[in-house]
């Protein structure tokens, strides 16, 4: 779901023409004085459900589920609540999506609220993905844009109709501004005052969407909706869920991927004060206790014998050797134009390079966790920072032996994800459900990961090896490019495989190479799967997290070989890609790219599109012996219409920081199948002293908006790598950077 193949671009919905609405596409229901508007996504079932559920107010209290398919709720207290179908794990969708609604509604920003939607694919489908509800691929704003504009515009029209009814004036004479409706006679009313009456109005057959030039909120600085609750300790994350009589569970997973439990001696564990139960599930052995401390002590006291007969037993060096062997053979073809092999054989200047990329943990600040509680009627409530609610609902239901409608998912703030909370098999929900099923189910259970569980727990960005050869033509362009990638597919064997595989190639493994924008007449891209019991997953920017480094460092090598300025060299090959050109020129200009730098300093550039957002970066570095300090990163981003420029800047800052941290020193390695790293002392995150000054520039655009959560990651490593080359003449190709190789530079 992160790949472009699933990201169908919407029609450019930016003209101020009245947008025809199927009457049944807009749903409304009044009740308890609230106006509720939703846009039907597909089919008639949601409408029927909405009608059947009509009249019940969406109470803003925990435990009371919001009514299905309501995107907008206007309450008598004058708050406007947007039901957000996506998880906010920091990227700011609970600010961005309400901004879209508020804009079309002409609401005041201060009256906007956000609430996470329940699990229901019929109602809260991600329209980029297919029939599931989920967050990823930087798709939240992109797939909600039209949906929420219509929802906001319809609510506004119904409020006006209510005012017309009340005031007996023509609709054309009613104005709406900052949450207040007015008539020239002096009459005025707030949204809250008219909410009940508006709910009685017919749904408009068509709505008029604003001309972007009339936007008053979109494109302006608005505070994040969560800027207060996240600074005073009151924001509730999944780890903060407390249910009456709740047990805390920690799970001892196999020490090697692919291992299983052979035998368990839990006598010592059960003797720990506070330990209540020890249960064995397919995923490992769980200790349930009165609190986290007791649970952890109990787990430390377990004696488990593992069956490693099907486990990964290799060390990292052996894996890499296997990858290199594969790379010496033909792989499945991901892209082909002309005859790259023939052209390479007959070209003059050929550049060869190889890159290795390690397994990477996501390491969100809040470790994975979820709580389950069984209700008196045999249904279940799950509390989590749920990123794929409908998948997790299905997995939990199947494990607990109930139908999905018996599983409610209550989504709360998530302390980061970077891809980790979204899994094709709902992994930690499955673990929790399996543990619950092994108990008498009388007490709620909170399954928590420790940091060690997180770092050692797999679902890593896969290890990759790239072998490349490219040749210049006589005009300073690129004659040929041959690229082989070896790395594990995390799509294979999942429900996503049929969609993500194209002619035997996992699109997420080769994205960013197979579809690179540069004009290259002879191109061959091949991929080998490298299966292993080690579990892997998308990691912020997915395939782009390695392909951008390989492509953009190779481009720098080629520019150098052609004795060209790296920006000019790229521009000449990007003639049909104006948005790449736009960000590249802007970043270069703002950074003063090409200026003379003192000895030991250098600038490097990279440009990369991911998830239909275009980002260019220029890194300024200072190198002293083998110490590299990244001083500044100048970023230009084109993500279509900028909804909230400050959130865009924040995501560029954060994306660059996340990518930089990994490039500087993160890797998961194996010693005979055992992960070497365990916590933040051995998997060291970026710290404040590593953080460069970041300067973000947003390209003005009238294109439909696209996401910003991931696209800030890919260009940072190659920009830094190219800057180090400019400073030292030495190449840092593989990640994490081998700074020792710079000694004596």
């Amino acid at each position, binding site marked *: 779901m992160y790949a472009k193949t699933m990201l169908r671009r919407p029609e450019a919905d930016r003209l101020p023409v009245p947008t025809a609405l199927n009457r049944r596409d807009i749903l409304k229901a009044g009740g308890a004085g609230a106006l509720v508007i939703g846009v039907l996504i597909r089919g008639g079932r949601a409408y029927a459900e909405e009608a059947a559920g009509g009249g019940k107010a969406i109470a803003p209290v925990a435990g009371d589920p919001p009514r299905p398919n309501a995107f907008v709720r206007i309450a008598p207290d004058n708050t406007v609540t947007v039901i957000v179908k996506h998880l906010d*794990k*920091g*990227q*700011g969708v609970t600010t961005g999506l309400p901004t879209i609604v508020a804009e079309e509604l002409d609401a005041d920003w201060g009256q906007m609220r956000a609430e996470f939607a329940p699990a229901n694919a019929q109602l809260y489908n991600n329209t980029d993905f297919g029939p599931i509800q989920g967050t990823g691929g930087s798709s939240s704003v992109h797939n909600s844009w039209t949906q929420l504009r219509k929802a906001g515009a319809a609510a506004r029209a119904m409020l006006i109709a209510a005012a017309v009814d009340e005031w007996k004036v023509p609709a054309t004479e009613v104005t709406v501004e900052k949450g207040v409706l007015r008539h020239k006679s002096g009459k005025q009313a707030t949204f809250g005052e008219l909410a009940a009456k508006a709910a009685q109005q017919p749904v408009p057959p068509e709505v008029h969407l604003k001309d972007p030039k009339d936007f008053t909120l979109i494109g302006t600085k608005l*505070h*994040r909706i*969560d*800027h*207060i*609750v*996240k*600074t*005073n*300790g*009151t*924001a*509730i*994350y999944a*780890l*903060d869920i*407390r249910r009456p009589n709740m047990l*805390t569970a920690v799970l001892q997973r196999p020490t090697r991927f692919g291992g299983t439990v052979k035998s368990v001696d839990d006598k010592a564990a059960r003797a720990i*004060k506070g330990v209540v139960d020890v249960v064995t599930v397919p995923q490992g052995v769980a200790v349930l206790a009165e*609190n*986290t*401390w*007791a649970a952890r002590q109990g787990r430390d006291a377990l004696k488990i014998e593992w069956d490693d007969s099907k486990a990964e037993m290799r060390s990292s060096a052996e894996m890499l050797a296997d990858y290199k062997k594969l790379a010496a053979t033909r792989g499945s073809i991901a892209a082909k134009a002309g005859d790259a092999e023939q052209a390479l054989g007959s070209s003059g200047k050929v550049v060869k390079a190889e890159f290795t990329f390690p397994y990477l943990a996501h*390491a*969100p*600040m*809040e*470790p994975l966790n979820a709580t389950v509680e069984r209700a008196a009627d045999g249904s279940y409530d799950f509390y989590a920072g749920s990123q794929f609610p409908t998948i997790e609902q299905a997995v939990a239901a199947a494990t607990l032996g109930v139908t999905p409608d018996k599983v409610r998912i209550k989504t709360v*703030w*998530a*302390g*980061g994800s*970077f891809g980790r909370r979204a899994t094709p098999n709902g992994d930690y929900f499955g673990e929790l459900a399996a543990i619950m099923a092994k108990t008498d189910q009388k007490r709620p259970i909170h399954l928590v990961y*420790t*940091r060690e569980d997180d770092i050692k727990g797999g679902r890593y960005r896969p290890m990759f090896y790239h072998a490349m050869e490219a040749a210049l033509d006589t005009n300073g362009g690129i004659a040929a490019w041959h690229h082989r990638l070896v790395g594990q597919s995390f799509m294979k064997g999942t429900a996503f495989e049929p969609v993500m595989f194209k002619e035997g190639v996992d699109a997420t493994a080769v994205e960013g190479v197979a579809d690179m924008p540069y004009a290259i007449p002879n191109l061959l891209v091949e991929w080998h799967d490298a299966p292993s019991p080690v579990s892997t997953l998308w990691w912020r920017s997915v395939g782009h997290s390695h392909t951008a480094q390989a492509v953009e460092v190779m481009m720098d090598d080629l520019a150098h070989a052609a004795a060209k300025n790296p920006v000019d060299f790229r521009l000449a090959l990007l003639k049909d890609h104006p948005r790449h050109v736009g960000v590249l020129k802007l970043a270069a200009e703002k950074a003063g790219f090409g200026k003379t730098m003192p000895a030991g300093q250098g600038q490097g550039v990279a440009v990369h599109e991911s998830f239909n957002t275009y980002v260019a970066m220029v890194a300024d570095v200072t190198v002293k012996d083998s110490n590299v300090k990244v001083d500044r990163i100048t970023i230009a981003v084109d993500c279509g219409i900028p909804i909230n420029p*400050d*959130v865009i800047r*924040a995501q560029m*800052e*954060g994306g*660059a*920081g*996340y990518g*930089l*941290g990994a490039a500087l020193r993160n890797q998961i390695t194996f010693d005979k199948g055992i992960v070497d790293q365990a*916590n*933040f*002392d051995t998997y060291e*995150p*970026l*710290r*404040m*002293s590593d*953080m460069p*000054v*970041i300067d973000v520039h947003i390209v003005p655009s009238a294109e439909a908006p696209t996401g910003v959560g991931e696209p800030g990651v890919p260009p940072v490593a190659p920009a830094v790598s190219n800057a180090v080359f400019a400073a030292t003449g030495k190449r840092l190709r593989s990640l994490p950077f081998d700074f020792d190789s710079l000694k004596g530079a």
Partner: protein
Amino acid sequence: MISLKINGSTHALDADPDMPLLWAIRDLLNMTGTKFGCGIAQCGACTVHLDGQPVRSCQTAISDAAGHEITTIEGVNGKVAQAVQAAWQELDVVQCGYCQSGQIMSAIGLLSQTPKPSDNDIESAMDGNVCRCATYGRIRAAIHDAANRLA
């Protein structure tokens, strides 16, 4: 029984004296503003004040915390705390927000000791607080902003 004074209130706990203060606060007293991030004092998410000094509650046994004034994010007050929180809000520092209780507790500790910190002072005081969203630039700016508010 171990007696802990947290945010001005005294709590008597029947718990393992070696239990880290973090788990007593979060699991026994259900005050969840203080976060668990690593458990080995490498990330600072669990930072609280002990007699006004920032400490990592994941590495502070409750037996060692007894007899001291413990302050958590829920209990901070005074002009330094207000200035820090206002600066955090004004600059929209937070993303996922999970580390920010700890960041704010460290920042309050810094500004209480050093009202006009340099960039180096800020790095020294804050380098132990990890933010995986990499909001570091804004944290630095917010600390300067808070210092200006207090000046």
